[in-house]
């Protein structure tokens, strides 16, 4: 039913939000499989269910019906503590509004996931430096977020999302608060990290221009998958090959 090479398996998931006497169906029997190492965009108009789907995959929301497997584990069966641990160990988040801790410097923000993972101080230092270097912000390590530009803040957020060595990075509209140049650079950065580190990225956007170099695009409409396109008919293996070239 769910082959072990699927990192994420969304199995006939419905999410309804109760609203007074009726209910809004944000996702309607949606299914999706994502393999490890994929770089996947979820596109669709406003209200199509992109955020809802990402929240469910990120285990910060629960489906009304259907199941979600991460690494073959049925997340609906996990206790709250295990769910928290799963997010802490396996999932990195990038948010539309950056959501950096304002009283922490860039380096301290990146350090936070390691802190809650219980990584020791010297390992934390090297890994924070590595992560900041990989997003090209080593020179900004000791700046507070309010001294950074929007593009820089989001790159710090990406460093924070990858520093804990997650299996999966989820980014809900990571470019919505960036100008076109910064938005393009951010997607390129994520794609680069995807290729170099083999990290799986799932991000959502409604900006068509950002999808040009995205190998797989899932389009949602009214909470249902409208299309799931691998660009130029590439298979997953070909996508990985494209990275190397």
């Amino acid at each position, binding site marked *: 039913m769910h082959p072990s090479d699927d990192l994420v398996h969304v199995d006939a998931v419905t999410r309804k939000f109760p609203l007074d006497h009726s209910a809004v169906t944000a996702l309607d029997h949606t299914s999706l499989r994502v393999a490890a190492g994929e770089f996947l965009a979820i596109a669709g108009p406003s209200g199509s269910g992109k*955020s809802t789907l990402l*929240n469910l995959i*990120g285990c*910060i*929301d629960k489906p009304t019906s259907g199941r979600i497997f991460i690494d073959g584990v049925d997340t609906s069966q996990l206790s709250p*503590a295990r769910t*928290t*641990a*799963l*997010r*802490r*160990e396996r*999932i990195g*988040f990038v*948010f539309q*509004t950056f*959501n950096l*801790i*304002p*009283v*922490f410097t860039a380096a*301290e923000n990146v*350090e*936070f*996931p390691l*802190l*809650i*993972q219980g990584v020791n101080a010297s390992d934390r230092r090297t890994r924070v430096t590595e992560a900041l270097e990989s997003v090209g912000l080593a020179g900004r390590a000791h700046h507070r977020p309010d001294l950074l530009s929007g593009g820089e803040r989001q790159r710090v957020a990406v460093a*924070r999302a990858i520093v804990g060595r997650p299996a999966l990075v989820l980014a809900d509209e990571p470019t919505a608060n960036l100008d076109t140049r910064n938005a393009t650079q951010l997607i390129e950065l994520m794609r680069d990290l995807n290729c170099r580190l083999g990290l799986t990225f799932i991000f959502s956007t409604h900006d068509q221009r950002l999808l040009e170099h995205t190998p797989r695009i899932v389009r949602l409409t009214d909470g249902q998958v409208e299309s799931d396109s691998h660009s130029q008919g590439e298979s997953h293996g070909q996508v990985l090959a494209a990275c190397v070239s």
Partner: protein
Amino acid sequence: MGKFLLLAFRNVFRNRRRTVMTLMMVGGGVAGLLLVGGFFAFMFRGLRESTIRNGLGHIQIFTAEHFQRDEVHVLDTGISDWRHVAASVRSGDHVRGVAPRIDFYGMLSNGVKSSVFMGSAVEPDSERAMGFSPRIASGRDLGSNSNGEVEALIGTGVAKSMSVKVGDGLTILAVTADGALNGIDVQIVGIVNTGFKDLDDRYLRITLPSAQRLLQTDRVTNLVVGLDDTENTDSVAAILIPELRGQSQPMVIRKWIDLAAYYQQVRTLFSGIFLFLGIIVFFMVLMASVNTLLMAMFERTREIGTMLAMGTPRMWIVALFMVEATLTGLFGAAVGVLGGNLLGVALNISGLHLPPPPGSDVPMAFKVLHVPGLMIGASLLVVISLALASILPAIRASRLQIAEALAHV
């Protein structure tokens, strides 16, 4: 752990304006408690010292019998070997002096009017050696050697009711130790205002030899011990108790605090008032802080959502908020202790006076003592208050629905 405390610390100073307001409120509460408590402590000390100097002394020595039975005749339960006892007590450390006293009662008459009295007989020199002197309204204190006329001090109330003044003569009538009636003629040398009307209406003081002649006895009622410093009362008492065991009559001692009923009443009353103030400050800080902390939590909803999404254990969020509030309490307490002490110093320098308290005509100095116990107590009070205030916001923060918190604007 260190980073976590750093995060809490920085969060405390995140919203400057609000932090300043909170610190001022908490610090104001602490400073207020220190000023009021410091003034009460000053008042207690003044009352304590004046009670002791008005004649109570630091320690009084009685025969054990004195408290065990009523006297059939005057001085039945008095100390007979008092010179010996006094000499041995006088040689101890911290002892400034030992004064024998006789309490007696009887009638006063000047041939026209008469009045009852509660008398005391003293050795004026021994009293003065300890710095105990009656508050003379007119005339002078008793002289040291009473050859010739027998000198007497009477209270203002006695003088008024008997229409006598300094220089007039009086006859004292009392029952002797054998049960016979005896009388002596005395001359009024001074009129005393104790500050307590009930006392002034009955007050009579003569010298010890005169009283012993009147009462036909060589006993005394008790010995009053004066020390160099009130703080030494307990340590001297602890030494005296075994020392007095060797005497021919079994002896007991009473410390000033056991005998100062008025002091204790005043202290109980004002301690009650202070406790009430403390409770008010506690709840004021609690209520104001719950509100402020809830506001802070609300503003940080998205940030908390982010931390939870990243897999921060919910207990960490609870701890973070509680540590932040506790730190705020500590800073507020520091501000309050600093401010309260500075204000106290300023007040003490200013030489402010309050109108005379009831029963007195001297304006009372308004001074505050710097009491370390009070500083610790007031600080603990606000720190605990803030820690308690943070529980509700902390738990609310930790229970946020992550997806909703992240969508919070």
